[in-house]
Structures are given as C-alpha cells and as structure tokens.
C-alpha cells in the first residue's frame, strides 16, 4: 500500500514536471531571444550605445527608424518561418520539410514578383496587394506539391521533396523570366528580396505584417495538439478523433498565409524553417506541442543573429541574410539527409 502510494507520488511528480518543463523552456527561450535582440541592436555599421542614444539626434533616428525595426522584422520573420517549418514537418511526417524544400517560398516569391513587376502598390482593405499575391502563390504551389506527392493513401517522403524542389525550380525560373523582361529598377527590386533581405524603414510595414501573422501564429499553436498526433501516426491520429483532412487543410492555408506574408517582405529566406525545429526538438524533445512554440522563439533569435552576422560579416558592405542562412543551412540539410538514411534513397 505504502509502496504503491510512493510510486504514485513519484509519478505525479514526473507528470507535473512535464508542464513545469514547458514553462521553464519558455523562460529560457525568452532570455535567449532577449540576448539575441541585444546582439542585433548592438551590431551595425554605426556603433550605438546608451550615451549616444541619449545625446545624438542622428544616432537616435538611425536606431529607432532603421535598426530596431530591422531587428524586430528579423525576429518575426524568423519566428514565422520556424513555426511553419515545425508544423509542415509534423503534418508531412518528414523531418526535411520546410517552406523552401516544399516549394511554398518559391510560389510566394513568384506571386510577389508578378505584383512588383506590374508595379501595383495598391492595398485592398489596408492589406498590400503584394501580401495577397504572395499568399496566393504560396497556396497554389502548396496545393500542387501536395497533389503531386499524394498518391493513394500514403505520401511518400521522397516524392514529396522531389515535387517541392521541382515546383521551386519552376517558380524561380518564372521569377527570373519576369526579372529579365521588366525595367532595371524593378528588376533590381525583385533581385534584392529574392535572396532575402531585411531592409526596412520604420514600423508601418511591421504592423501590417503582424496584423496577418499574429492570427496565423495563434492558429498554428491551436493546431499543435492535432499535429502532434499526426506526427506520431496518421491512421492512429484519425482513430483518436483527429479530423485529418481538416487539420491538413487548415495547416496548409495558415502556412501559405504566413510564408506568403514573410516572403513578400523579406524574400525567400531558406532553411530557417528546417534548422530551427530540429534544434528545438533536440533541446526540448519531440512533442510538437512543445517543439512548435519553442521553434517560434528560437526562430526569432536565430534570424536576428543571422541578420546581425549578415550586417557585420563584410565590414561596411552587407550580405543578404538569405545567403547567411543558406550557407549555414545547406550543410545542415545535407548532414540531416545523411543521418536519415532512408531519404538518401531519393
């Protein structure tokens, strides 16, 4: 009797630590994000410290109009891409899924570049048309990839990635074609964000983004429980009461929206959605209900650091942040592929 009670008490403790563990993880992540923000704000061509901030008008302007918005932008784009990556990996049960490898970023980029090429700066009910076009592009390519890869009941992991990569190539080729046929200034505009860059002035674009991104984040967090069951096994999830089709559709739609909005502002920044969820799982375990929110925070920190590196790596000149994440992410992807032996059969 006593032995049983002790065992029960021990188990109770173990269980309650699951939620404590979660809260502790979030606190650690907040600290990490704080440190990354500081590094991001500190780094730059012009060294700005608290003293100059208090006395120098120009420094203050640089800080609040350029540097702070840029760091915040890096944070929200990184958070978004990482959370979408975590969700897509769960729903496709494929650790190599990512907005870039599934062709979603490519589709978004195509949608956005069509609008830029046409020079449409208009808004529909306050939302820039370029957001909507990128969202549509992302959604269409997601639908194509899913249709192509979905044969019968099973989604083969290899065919999924192949379809994604081909859609991405087609979209890139279409963007290049557009770029060569339009005038130079717009062509340069497309080229700049195509590689991924986080140049912003002021906060207005960030508020507009957040209007769409924040509901998307919440939607993904609400889907996390079903995504966890789907990550374990699709048929079992269905038998446990998950409406698989509805969950899939919701995830695609939300992911397309999130990726579309980030792509239309920051360009297609690759590999954040691939690396960050893996780091989150390594640090905090496989459970999607934990890994997804953790990816959100880690993604923010990661892209803020990557952007700081991009801004300082070449001294005065600046690297596109997409190049930094690709240089870090490409080898990581290959390493993962080597580790996941069964994808090597691609």
């Amino acid at each position, binding site marked *: 009797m006593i032995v049983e009670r002790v065992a*029960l008490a021990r*188990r*109770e403790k*173990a*269980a*309650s630590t*699951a*939620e404590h563990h*979660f809260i502790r993880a979030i606190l650690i992540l907040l600290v990490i994000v704080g440190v990354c923000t500081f590094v991001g704000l500190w780094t730059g061509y012009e060294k700005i410290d608290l003293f100059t901030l208090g006395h120098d008008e120009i420094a203050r302007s640089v800080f609040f109009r350029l540097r702070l918005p840029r760091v915040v932008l890096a944070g929200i784009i990184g958070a978004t891409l990482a959370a979408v990556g975590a969700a897509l990996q769960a729903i496709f*049960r*494929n*650790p190599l899924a990512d907005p870039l490898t599934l062709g979603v970023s490519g589709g978004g980029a195509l949608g956005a570049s069509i609008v830029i090429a046409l020079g449409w700066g208009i808004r529909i009910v306050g939302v820039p048309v370029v957001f909507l076009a990128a969202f549509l592009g992302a959604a269409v390519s997601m639908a194509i990839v899913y249709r192509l890869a979905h044969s*019968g009941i099973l989604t083969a*992991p290899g065919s999924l990635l192949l379809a994604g990569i081909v859609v991405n190539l087609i979209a890139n080729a279409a963007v290049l074609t557009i770029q060569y046929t339009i005038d130079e200034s717009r062509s340069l505009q497309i080229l700049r964000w195509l590689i991924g860059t986080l140049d912003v002035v002021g906060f207005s674009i960030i508020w507009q983004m957040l209007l769409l991104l924040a509901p998307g984040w919440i939607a993904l967090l609400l889907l996390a*429980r079903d995504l*966890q*069951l789907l*990550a*374990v*096994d*699709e*048929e*079992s*999830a*269905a*038998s*446990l*009461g*998950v*409406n698989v089709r509805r969950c899939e559709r919701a995830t695609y739609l939300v992911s397309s929206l999130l990726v579309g909005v980030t792509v239309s502002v920051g360009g297609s920044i690759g590999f954040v959605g691939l690396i960050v969820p893996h780091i989150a*799982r390594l640090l905090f375990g*496989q*459970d999607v*209900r934990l890994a997804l929110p953790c990816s959100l925070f880690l993604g923010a920190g990661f892209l803020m650091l990557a952007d700081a590196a991009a801004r300082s790596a070449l001294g005065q000149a600046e690297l596109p942040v997409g190049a930094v994440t690709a240089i870090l992410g490409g080898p990581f992807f290959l390493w993962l592929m080597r580790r996941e032996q069964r994808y090597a059969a691609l």
Partner: protein
Amino acid sequence: MKLVDARGLCFEYAPQRPTIVSVSLEVQRGSMAAVIGPNGCGKSTVIRLLAGLLRPRTGQVFYRGAPLHTQDRRKLARQLAYVPQTSSRAFPFTSLEVVLTGRTPYASPFRLENAADMQIAMQALETVGMAHLAQRRITELSGGERQLVSVARALAQEPECVLLDEPSASLDLKHRAALIRTLMDLRNRTGLTAVMVTHDLMLLDSGFDVVFAMRCGAIAAGGPPEDVLRDSVLADVYDDPFIRSRRVDGHLCVWSELHS
C-alpha cells in the same frame, strides 16, 4: 448485445473497382472475433470501415446501435480503439510518448498529460510486456516491438472494443500467443471486445468466439471457429485444395500441403 453491427457495406478505393461488396457482420459485446482470408481480399478495408476511418459507399456501421459516422470522433475514441497494421516512425518519439497519445481523447485541449494518464500509459505498456522499453525511441525498436507499442496505445484509450489489423504479423511465436492471451485476459476481466484481422489460423480455435472468412471482398463463411476452420471451407476461401485442418491432442492444426 450487439456492439458492432455492419450492414451491407460496399466500398471502393477507385471507381468501378469494388474492394468490398456487401459485407454484413455482427460482433457481440465481450466476444472475440477474427477476420481471416487470403491477401488482398479486403480484410484491412473492413476493419477500417468498422473503425470509421473509411465511409462505406453504401451500407452502414452501427456502434452501440447508433450509426458510426454520426458519433463524435473524440468521444468514440474513448470506446473504440484501432491498431493499424504499420505505423509511421518519421520522428524518434519514445514508446511512452506514443502510448500517451492514446490518452488524448480524455485530455483537455491545452493541458499536457497528467499523472493519472501517465500511470495508465505505463500500465498499458506493462500489459503488453513492453514496460522496460518505455523510454526507448520507436525508431530503434523492431517491427514486432513497435506493433506491441501500438497495441499499448490502443489499450491506453481504455476502450470497450479494440480493432486490430494484423497485430501479430511481425511477432514471434511467443508474443503472438502472448498477445491473444492478453486480449483474452482483458475480455475476461473487463469485458473487452476485440476484432482482429489475422493469418494465424492455429491460434483462433481456443480463444475466439467467432471467425469471419473473407474472399474477394465478401464474407464467405462466418461462425464459431470449429465450423469455419475446416478443410472444406478453407480450401474454398483460400482457393487452395491442399489446405488441411486436423485436430491433434485437442489443438487445431491448419496447414497447406507442399507436396500433393
């Protein structure tokens, strides 16, 4: 009392190529039923229809007297559990994490599993003899061990009826018998109902109450094991005249002659 009652089920995965043609079957509460038949005859499809994972084109499945598809899926998952033939192993979840997913039909949306859930999950792992592998990653387990984890996940749902799709396919001799023993024991203790797709004809005789033999998407024979597991019936079901069924020391032996 009829727990599972399927009437006139028809199903096709692709148009004009029917997989299931008019299957009707009844499973009484607290009984153990087996579905047997040659490869590709539609056994797995029938079990998926019974689990409500597929919707029949015509006909209907009744569970506890109510049509299956009108019932709330999450509430249903507290009564009806399904063990798939194979399960994904894309991510290195631990056995315990997989079994804990069986507790989600009971959990409130924004809570992680509590102490009671944890205990039930451990108990389920113990029942199938897998408690020592609770912290092992499923990617490191053998096929048979993964199947037992799947069964434990179903048991963690605390169902009154469990549908199993060839759970014994990659189990060794000992664990095949052990699995059926476990199901029989649960039936006797808690009144569990089980419907199991299987190729283990020799294990059906003593434990199972009813056997449905399928052929070409229809039920060719159904009834107590001693009526169905006879050479005349089996030869017809499997379309194999070399099948023999004999009783040796009270045990039923079924085999197919290699040399005629």
